[in-house]
């Protein structure tokens, strides 16, 4: 695993910066003058009501959405623009591919390739992108499946796996490209309740054993609290409140945060 060991110090330059980012889908403004940054190795939880723009942030980083205005900067390089001879151009496909190589993403609905077995799902991209040889990818892929507890399912097609197993394969697949930043988009929302824990355990291990920067969008408040170094509470495309999980969950300052958490607790979640 390509671990990017970097001491977490306050003066470190951010790995991700959102600079006045706006995103609209037609007349609907999803992100509104959004500014925040993420330090290398930081574990960030993005919470808030549905439609508050959390997922859009991850999708922008994965280049699945473009910005309407503003700039997303990764390691000091703009994700949306390129500069040639001091002139600004929209990012080319080549530029986007280069930028993407820092990221891995796990989707709410797994998005596994149904015609490929678990191990083939994991090895396809490292081989095609030239990162690893076939033999290396296979070896590495089996290690990753082992890590997510699915070594015995390597040759199964996704249709024969449970939701929790599928999501663990999807995590292994994202890790196979050795990303520096892992984006986790509501990865337990599509799972039956009894399968949530096996997926969260994998994430907890990753959090503790690697130096990857991780951004987690979730509705599991209990997990967000254990996982995050910092929590951002979003509403209507803006950050309402941010801080360490202890503050956000136990002594939120903002009335909107309080009412959101009250609703979540009323729905039966542990916070």
């Amino acid at each position, binding site marked *: 695993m390509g671990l990017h060991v970097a001491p977490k110090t306050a003066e470190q330059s951010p790995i991700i910066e959102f600079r006045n980012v706006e995103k609209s889908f037609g007349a609907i403004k999803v992100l509104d003058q959004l500014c925040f940054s993420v330090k290398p190795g930081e574990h960030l939880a993005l919470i808030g009501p549905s439609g508050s723009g959390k997922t859009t942030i991850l999708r922008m980083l994965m280049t699945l959405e473009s910005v309407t205005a503003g700039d997303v900067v990764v390691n000091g390089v703009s994700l949306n623009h390129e500069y040639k001879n001091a002139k600004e151009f929209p990012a080319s496909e080549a530029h986007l591919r280069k930028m993407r190589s820092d990221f891995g993403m796990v989707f709410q609905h797994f998005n596994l390739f149904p*015609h*490929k077995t678990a191990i083939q799902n994991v090895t396809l991209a490292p081989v095609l992108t030239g990162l690893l040889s076939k033999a290396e990818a296979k070896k590495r892929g089996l290690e990753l499946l082992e890590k997510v507890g699915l070594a015995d399912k390597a040759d199964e097609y996704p*249709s024969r796996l449970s939701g929790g197993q*599928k999501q663990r394969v999807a995590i292994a697949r994202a890790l196979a490209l050795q990303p520096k930043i892992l984006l986790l988009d509501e990865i337990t929302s599509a799972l039956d309740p009894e399968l949530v824990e096996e997926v969260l355990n994998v994430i907890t291990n990753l959090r503790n054993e690697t130096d990857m920067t991780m951004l987690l969008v979730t509705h599991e408040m209990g997990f967000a609290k254990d996982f995050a170094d910092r929590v951002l509470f979003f509403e209507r495309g803006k950050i309402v409140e941010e801080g360490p999980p202890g503050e956000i969950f136990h002594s939120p300052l903002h009335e909107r945060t309080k009412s959101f958490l009250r609703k979540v607790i009323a729905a039966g979640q542990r916070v």
Partner: protein
Amino acid sequence: MENFEASVGYGWYILTGAWATVQLTVFSCAVALVIAMVTGVAMTRNSHLLRLVARFYVEFFRGTSVFVQLFAAYFVLPLIGITLSPIQAGVLALGLNGGAYGSEVVRAAINAVGRDQREATIALNLTGWQALWWVILPQAVVLMLPSFGNLAIEIMKGTAVASLITVSELTFQAQTVRSQTGDTAIPFLLIMVTYLAMASLMMSFVRWLEKRFGRGITSEST
């Protein structure tokens, strides 16, 4: 009894036409498949030029009769110095025509593979062509197969038009027997059964392909 022996005799004569029908069918299907894939994929790409050229091709060959295309291939192409044998002309016309119909099948199947699959290929940093070849097409092919089976049978039945440019295929042979013996029922019954047998064979092949390519896909989508 004499009549029966005569029937058996010309029966064989008619069946000799089956070989030409098979040749026409196999080669036309091959041409149609390649053209359908190329133009169908072209219609799903971002390039306006690619899409325009493919669209023009499809509309032109779908919108003009295969009959006219066949005559053009056999009688008009020689005027610009390209002389084709009757079978070659038949394959060209049937292949180009079938390809135009198949193109829509390919385009629709590619578009039917979910957006989630495309997004996964982006997240895994595959190029557009890698995504198409390794992820989208293998899933789309399973969706294409039933329609391709229909199309192949259409092409097989369409080979009868090649009799008009003197290819001695099944229908041509049956017509010859009819004009010489005056017997209509037996020759046409015979070619009907032969066409049916060929169609059944083709469908079995398509079903085998569906099974072969459907592994992991046909039971559910992920």
